[in-house]
């Protein structure tokens, strides 16, 4: 189906483990984003990408790594998960510059 999908929807992992959250969009949008949502903080930008092989840090990039070898995929990796990274993660994409962002369903990540 067309759209933007995240996987998994829910994930529990242990402290220190590496975990990758997947994001796939079918619109060929140039811009893609990763946000984390925490109570009282709204959505905070982790990383964004303007095109394949072009990524840049957002507000809270520490502890995260991204890559974008293909336009449609934008995985987010937590190299060594910490409890403070327990959050809901949203992937989003947008097409032309300054159009709205379309969001995935979110991934609830719990680090124990």
């Amino acid at each position, binding site marked *: 189906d067309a759209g933007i999908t995240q996987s998994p929807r829910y994930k529990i992992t242990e402290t220190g483990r590496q975990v990758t959250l997947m994001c796939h969009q079918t619109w060929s949008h140039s811009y893609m984003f990763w*946000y984390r949502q925490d109570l009282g903080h*709204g*959505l905070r930008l982790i990383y*964004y990408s303007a095109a394949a092989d072009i990524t840049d840090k957002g*507000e809270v990039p520490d502890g995260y790594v991204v890559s974008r070898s293909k336009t449609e995929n934008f995985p987010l990796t937590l190299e060594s998960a910490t409890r403070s990274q327990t959050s809901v993660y949203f992937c*989003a994409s947008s097409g032309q510059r300054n159009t*709205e*962002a379309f969001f995935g369903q979110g991934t609830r990540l719990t680090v124990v």
Partner: protein
Amino acid sequence: AQTVTQSQPEMSVQEAETVTLSCTYDTSESDYYLFWYKQPPSRQMILVIRQEAYKQQNATENRFSVNFQKAAKSFSLKISDSQLGDAAMYFCAAMGYNFNKFYFGSGTKLNVKP
């Protein structure tokens, strides 16, 4: 860089009444775009309304309208004839023309009372 501030963590409105959610922002860019997103309990982010900063006319989408005060850097959302389905978290967002990064406020939880 941009910052977006929503000073009302939670608000309540009676069904069929009108409510206004506040948002202020700060940006160093001369041109930018502003958005209101709705997040119901399903967690899905839904665009409610969009405003281009260079337009003086306030955007309107059915029961939703904005009051955009550029000099004051204020962007409030007015919901008329509130419905039970309007109950959700509402996020204000700003995006600079040159960088295409969306920055969000901390959100306002809207309760609608029957």
